[in-house]
């Protein structure tokens, strides 16, 4: 009996199963990987954490490509797929299997998926729209600085400075902060914020937050918190390199923390020492020599990843049939 779903729904189910596997493996591995990650230079760590946060999406897509690869290769004339009758489970073939067959189960799966994706998109869109409205208002209430590029000065008695925006990031600095820091500190702050702008950290963090939502909640929070810290430390390193004085950057973070921070509750636990702990971790990081980028490590990891990819595609028939069998079990 041929299973009554088309290639479209079959592909979506494979994506979903692959994403679930990635989420489970991530939940098991991440607590263990933490120590290794801290040994990486901040910029590298940020890239690894971004890849980890978005892994359910890109690894799921890669898995789908792997599973369909025998059929795609056959279509391109560079391989042969055996398209004999697969009456006992779905046949994942881009040539012979229609994308939609119109069965009940298909409509149910598609309907459910469309509802979930719509809800997710609406939530993300609402949040994005709200944030853009707030930034638009802040921009309207600020004036572009004549001395500092890409920087808007906001007349406010509250000291703050941040870079915000996804496609066109801008720096927002309050007049209170400008008046409270000396020229060296201001140069450090602006160098740090410009690094965020050039690194497109707004887009990076937004994308990680969007796709990271697929991870199990406690792991997602850890990954995103670690990513935020890595991103800040990467920009600290840029500022330190520009000024040539790591201690200057550490002192600036300390000063601005005092300006911005409100009094912490007096708690007995270790947690009290780390409320607003990013600042403390960043300062301590700057008191140590910079972690060097290790091209050999990166090269080794790249070669390993490439090797795994080649191995995976070499055994694509196995993945292809395993996926077909799995779909057969799922669809009864």
């Amino acid at each position: 009996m041929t299973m009554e779903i088309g290639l479209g729904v079959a592909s979506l189910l494979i994506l979903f199963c692959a994403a679930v596997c990635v989420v489970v493996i991530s939940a098991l591995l991440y607590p263990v990987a933490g120590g290794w990650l801290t040994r990486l230079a901040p910029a590298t760590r940020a890239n690894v954490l971004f890849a980890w946060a978005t892994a359910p999406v890109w690894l799921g897509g890669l898995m789908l490509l792997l599973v369909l690869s025998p059929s795609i290769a056959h279509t391109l004339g560079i391989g042969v797929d055996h398209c004999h009758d697969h009456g006992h489970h779905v046949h994942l073939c881009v040539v012979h299997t229609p994308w939609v067959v119109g069965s009940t189960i298909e409509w149910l799966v598609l309907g459910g998926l469309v509802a979930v994706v719509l809800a997710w998109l609406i939530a993300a869109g609402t949040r994005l729209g709200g944030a853009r409205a707030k930034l638009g208002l802040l921009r309207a209430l600020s004036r572009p600085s004549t001395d500092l590029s890409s920087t808007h000065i906001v007349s406010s008695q509250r000291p703050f400075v941040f870079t915000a925006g996804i496609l066109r990031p801008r720096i927002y600095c309050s007049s209170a902060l400008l008046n409270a820091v000396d020229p060296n500190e201001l140069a450090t702050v602006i160098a740090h914020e410009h690094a965020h702008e050039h690194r497109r950290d707004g887009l990076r963090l937004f994308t990680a937050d969007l796709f990271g939502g697929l991870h199990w909640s406690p792991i997602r929070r850890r990954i995103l918190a670690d990513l935020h810290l890595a991103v800040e430390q990467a920009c600290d390193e840029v500022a330190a390199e520009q000024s040539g004085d790591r201690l200057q950057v550490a002192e600036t973070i300390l000063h601005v923390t005092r300006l911005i921070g409100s009094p912490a509750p007096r708690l007995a636990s270790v947690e009290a020492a780390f409320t607003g702990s990013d600042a403390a971790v960043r300062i301590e990081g700057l008191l140590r020599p910079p972690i060097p980028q290790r091209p050999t490590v990166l090269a080794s990891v790249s070669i390993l990843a490439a090797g795994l990819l080649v191995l995976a595609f070499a055994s694509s028939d196995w993945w292809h049939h395993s996926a077909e069998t799995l779909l057969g079990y799922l669809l009864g």
Partner: protein
Amino acid sequence: MLTRPYLGELELAVLEELWGHGACDAKTVHRRIGDRRGIALNTVQSTLERLYRKDLLTREKVSHAYVYAPSVRREQLMERLIEDVVETFSAGRSEPMLAAFVDLAAKVDDDNLARLERLIAERRAEAEDKPS
């Protein structure tokens, strides 16, 4: 006083007009800012009505039309708007598109900061004592 949603661009423009020129009716506001933006008198009237309902304007009926005047000073409202925006951004990393130099919601643990200050001072002293 001010409740969300935040003020839109036209609402701000109308307020700026009233702060700058004093109490006006809808037609006057439309003549000054509506024409150049290509918006209809109805739109300006709706905006004034919205601002009135947000308690940012007072109004008085003069002949057949309402005359609107600001009920808050510019500086007061600007500070309040900025505070609202920054507060929502600082609510525990609620906005992933934002990267702050120091977490806007940072809590200051004085003992910890003092410890870090001492560490920095020690490193400075070591760096200065090091022979070049």
